[in-house]
């Protein structure tokens, strides 16, 4: 590394990126895709199992409430595992397999909570809880209101 000898920022950034590229572990394409498929699919199968058990125990529950329950259960388990440091290990193995399911959202909130706790309960934990997951809520809610308004306007005519 000869970062200190280079003046221009772009050149320094390029050197640094090359350095990261050289140092980061190479994983084969097919293997990481397979891991993502396996873990991501497995999480969904777990969700389906929970959903079927709930449906068998409480036949009167609405479909939407059951799928909300499934998400609540998966989110809770993920954050608890994140708290014990187990989830990071699964995440390293699975790549996007744990990011794309709702576990990725939960892990983002859980790890922010753990990370920013040391900055205080109000401005650390409280303020930065949604440091990574915030954009999801912001974009999602804004889009949902736009969809709702469009639908209401269409309904007027």
């Amino acid at each position: 590394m000869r970062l200190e000898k280079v003046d221009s920022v772009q050149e320094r950034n390029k050197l640094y990126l090359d350095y990261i590229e050289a140092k980061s572990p190479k994983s084969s394409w097919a293997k990481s895709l397979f891991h993502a498929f396996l873990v991501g699919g497995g999480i969904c199968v777990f969700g389906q199992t929970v959903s079927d058990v709930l449906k068998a125990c409480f036949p009167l529950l609405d479909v939407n409430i059951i799928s909300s329950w499934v998400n609540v259960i998966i989110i809770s388990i993920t954050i608890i595992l994140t708290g014990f440091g187990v989830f990071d290990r699964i995440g390293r193995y699975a790549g996007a397999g744990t990011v794309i399911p709702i576990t990725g959202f939960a892990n983002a909130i859980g790890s922010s909570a753990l990370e920013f706790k040391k900055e205080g309960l109000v401005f650390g934990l409280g303020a930065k809880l949604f440091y990574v997951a915030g954009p999801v809520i912001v974009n999602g809610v804004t889009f949902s209101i736009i969809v709702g308004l469009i639908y209401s306007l269409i309904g007027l005519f």
Partner: protein
Amino acid sequence: MLETILLYLKVMFVGGTICMLGQILVIRTKITTARILVLFLMIGAVLGGVGIYGYLVQWAGAGATVPITGFGNALARGAINGAKTDGLFGAIAGGLIATSAGVSMAIAVAYLIALCTSSRTKKH
């Protein structure tokens, strides 16, 4: 019995494929976690708003609702269903009503877990 096995295979296939698409994106573009979450959420919300995602949910159950695309779909469907039942107010509140259980639980559990565990700062 055969139907149940078939359903679980479909769940595995759809959920796994969505994650695999995400992994391809990660490998090709080195996209960050927040961006990939937002991207897939918006894909789900658009497909849900148009009404296509509902068919996928019917076909593959949790394989379509557990990925973050299902969260986007729930937001969009919530707003549309709210607009149907409560008019303009439902259009504004519906999205969060449909997804509030997950978000609320995530906030509460994360806060409590962070309070209960000591932060594991690595010793240098």
